[in-house]
């Protein structure tokens, strides 16, 4: 047994009052009376013997002291168990990412549940232990600096709101421990739907981690996890909107996906949720103009999170991308393919040793090794494996497997007849190279893409010139056009896919969203922490969640992740919340007992 607020024990000094009353003032006035008959008539209580009266007097004193003691113990926070370690600090870490808005069957969100748990436990925190409240999604924020006031904790918690951002838990624990590690021993309470699952070895000494897994065991959620727009390589003003829908959990009801351009309804698709468990690409051919706003809406019954049901694309200036073609020997079919794009792509020529002029969107390195000065967006076509990082020469007898698309409906392979494609492989990407396969055979990526530190590199590990009639078919300029448009699209203003949490360069002093939300720009940079189309000066955009992780987390348990983590239980090193209730009940019982014993009749 220990006290959470031992200072409150000073109230025990009030015991002096009943003691003084008992010793000094409880002397009744004595008076002779002609007859007791009338007073006896008032009190029908049997005559009490002197010893019983004396006993009752002592009992009254005892009960008064007990009442005072219990009230003081309640104020002082009498608690069972041991006070635990001599904690120097307690840190509450709350996940405020998008998945924490997932509504549970009882109607409350996961963040609500976390706040409810914390409010319930806040009364049992020992006095003298400072509490720090941190929240995280893409960044760690200090919601409440170390403080001792319970009311301040509760106020800070009540101000806490989830944000439509994906969380990045991989570096949050370290940052939390670094933030708070100066004061030890400390205890970290983590509330999230994605436990950190750190072992004791991962934690510094004197740091205890307690986790509440707020993810429930079942439920359904569908969301948009990716969106892109690919201009038609050979047709100006036309293009295809690609979007990926992910549906997790059990539901037999179809999901409806609709597309609007400038708020005008364009298309509607019904998606079978069973096909979207791993992500289903859906494409919409559209005609767009500069400044158009493309909006995707997902409608699903029993959906548990709403923030992933919408995605937006803002079409910027229709500027043709500038492509620098670096090669020693320029292939005629390649030249024809590039010329076929007409005014949609502007092509510059350069040799392997030439510098890259400014204004280039994509660099094509055709049969040459990567240059010493990398460009943010490069396409490597048949690079020499011995001079290219991450590539190796093809082994003597490579496995003979037909090429296949890794993801059905991949926008990069749009229009490509994969079945009639017979690539001649000249190198292969090693597993440590970081290239994610888009088209693969038995030896790995034939077409691979790598994003590393803001740089996007796409590689073709085959020689188009020796790949049968590939160069003679329409697939070749289509694949080249898709690749160039994809690489250029991420780097130019034409179509910008904006995810919440990104930093965007914008004009003006503040950005205003369609629902009236405003955010100040800091040094011309805007942090996208709100969903929907926004406008800042002459800059416009639209932020979407687009997080596969958050959409998955909002659904039911995923084998191997959430189910594997049992809901942790607090080991009760602090007080049990029920102690206060027991004290209050005892207090009430004593008061009733005293009233019944001594005051049930006015006369005794």
């Amino acid at each position, binding site marked *: 047994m220990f006290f959470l607020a031992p200072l409150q024990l000073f109230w025990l000094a009030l015991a002096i009052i009943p003691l003084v009353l008992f010793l000094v003032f409880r002397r009744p006035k004595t*008076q002779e009376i002609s007859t007791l008959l009338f007073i006896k008539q008032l009190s029908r209580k049997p005559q009490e013997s002197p010893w019983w009266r004396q006993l009752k007097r002592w009992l009254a004193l005892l009960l008064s002291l007990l009442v005072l003691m219990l009230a003081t113990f309640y104020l002082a926070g009498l608690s069972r168990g041991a006070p635990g370690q001599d904690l120097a600090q307690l840190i509450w870490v709350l996940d405020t990412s998008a998945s924490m808005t997932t509504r549970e069957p009882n109607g409350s969100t996961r963040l609500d549940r976390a706040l409810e748990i914390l409010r319930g436990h806040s009364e049992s925190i020992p006095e003298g232990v400072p509490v720090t409240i941190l929240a995280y999604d893409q960044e760690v924020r200090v919601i409440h600096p170390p403080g001792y006031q319970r009311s301040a904790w509760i106020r800070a918690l009540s101000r806490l709101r989830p944000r439509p951002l994906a969380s990045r838990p991989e570096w949050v624990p370290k940052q939390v421990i670094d933030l708070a590690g100066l004061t030890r021993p400390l205890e970290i309470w983590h509330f999230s739907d994605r436990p950190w699952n750190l072992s004791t070895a991962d934690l510094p000494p004197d740091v205890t981690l307690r986790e509440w897994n707020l993810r429930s065991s079942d439920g359904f959620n569908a969301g948009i996890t990716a969106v892109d727009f690919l201009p038609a390589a050979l047709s100006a003003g036309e293009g295809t909107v690609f979007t990926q829908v992910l549906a997790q959990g059990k539901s037999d009801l179809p999901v409806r996906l609709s597309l609007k351009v400038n708020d005008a309804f364009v298309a509607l698709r019904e998606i079978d949720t069973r096909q979207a468990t791993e992500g289903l690409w859906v494409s919409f051919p559209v005609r767009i103009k500069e400044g158009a706003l493309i909006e995707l809406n997902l409608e699903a019954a029993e959906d548990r999170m709403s923030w992933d049901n919408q995605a937006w694309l803002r079409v910027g200036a229709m500027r043709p991308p500038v492509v620098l073609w670096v090669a020693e020997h320029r292939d005629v079919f390649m030249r024809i393919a590039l010329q076929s794009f007409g005014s949609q792509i502007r092509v510059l020529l350069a040799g392997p040793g030439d510098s890259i002029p400014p204004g280039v969107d994509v660099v094509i390195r055709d049969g040459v090794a990567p240059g010493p000065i990398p460009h943010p967006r490069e396409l490597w076509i048949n690079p020499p494996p011995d001079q290219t990082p991450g590539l190796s020469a093809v082994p003597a007898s490579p496995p003979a497997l037909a090429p296949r698309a890794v993801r059905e409906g991949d926008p990069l392979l749009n229009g490509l007849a994969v079945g009639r494609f017979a690539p001649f492989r000249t190198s292969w990407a090693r597993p440590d190279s970081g290239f994610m396969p888009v088209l693969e055979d038995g030896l790995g990526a034939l077409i691979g893409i790598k994003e590393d530190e803001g740089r996007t590199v796409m590689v073709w590990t085959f020689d188009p010139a020796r790949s049968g009639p590939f160069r003679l078919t329409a697939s070749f300029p289509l694949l080249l056009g898709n690749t160039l448009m994809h690489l250029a699209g991420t780097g130019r203003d034409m179509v910008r896919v904006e995810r919440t949490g990104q930093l965007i360069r914008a004009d003006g002093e503040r950005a205003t969203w369609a629902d009236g939300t405003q955010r100040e720009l800091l040094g011309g940079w805007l942090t996208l922490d709100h969903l929907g189309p926004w406008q800042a000066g002459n800059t416009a955009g639209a932020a979407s969640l687009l997080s596969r992780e958050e959409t998955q987390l909002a659904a039911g348990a995923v084998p191997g992740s959430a189910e594997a983590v049992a809901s942790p239980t607090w080991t009760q090193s602090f007080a049990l919340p029920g102690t206060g209730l027991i004290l209050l009940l005892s207090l009430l019982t004593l008061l009733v007992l005293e009233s019944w014993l001594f005051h049930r009749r*006015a006369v005794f």
Partner: protein
Amino acid sequence: MQEDEALFDPAFLGRLRVLLLKLRKRRLLQKRGATSTPAAGFTREFKDHRPYISGDDFRSVDWRLFARLEKLFIRIFEEVQEFHLHLLIDTSMSMKRPHPGKRQTALRLAAALAHLGLAGQHRVSLMRLGDTVSQLHPPVKGQGNIHRLLSLMAGLEFGGTSDFETSLGRWRADRSKRGMVFVISDFFGRDLHQAERAVEAAGRWDAETHFVQILDPAEINPDLEGEWKLIDVETGEQRRFFLNRRDRDRLHQEIESYLRHLETSALRREINLVRWTTDQDFEEMFVRLLARGSALADSG
């Protein structure tokens, strides 16, 4: 004895004489004989004549008047009644403590009544009322005995309890006790029904009965708010009470209810019950007592 001296001090005796003069004056104004009654008797006192009717006693015929008027008239004489005044004084402890004024009032009232009775040539008996009724002396007559009675009263010991039911139930107002009975008490018995049963017993007496209930104002409206240790002066019983304002009011209501009930009970049995609080003017109360149908008021 200082208390007793104060009881019958010269001032009180002087006031008593004045009181008797007032009563005599009132009687004269009523133009009636002090002891006369409507009935005709055989005393020497001539009262009136009436025509002779057959069957009348010839010895009563006024022959002188017959000689003058030649008509027969009968002489009528006054019948003088002699009362026996019984004074029963409650000598229980509650008449003395905690309010000594009750004892003083009771004894002064008894003295006044005795004086009035003796002055009217009635026989007066003084009795103490406790657990039993005991006569303190043989019946006396004549004004000269007043000092003897006063002396007896002054020496009267108060103490013990009172049992009205037993004492008044056994005391029979037999033939020798016919006359007038004054019971002077607070009528606080061993239980709340004793006094009522005493009234019931007194209702069977042949005598004209007066109950004088001597009370202290504090007994009717006790100021007992708070915690008290109360001692019953008769039984010595001690009890602790805690009374709030509401209980105090209820107590007052209980006492009032008891007193009213007792008055109603007495009235039903044609017994005159007078509530006499010690803060009231003695003379005024005494006159009021006699005015309430007492034949004693016309004597003396």
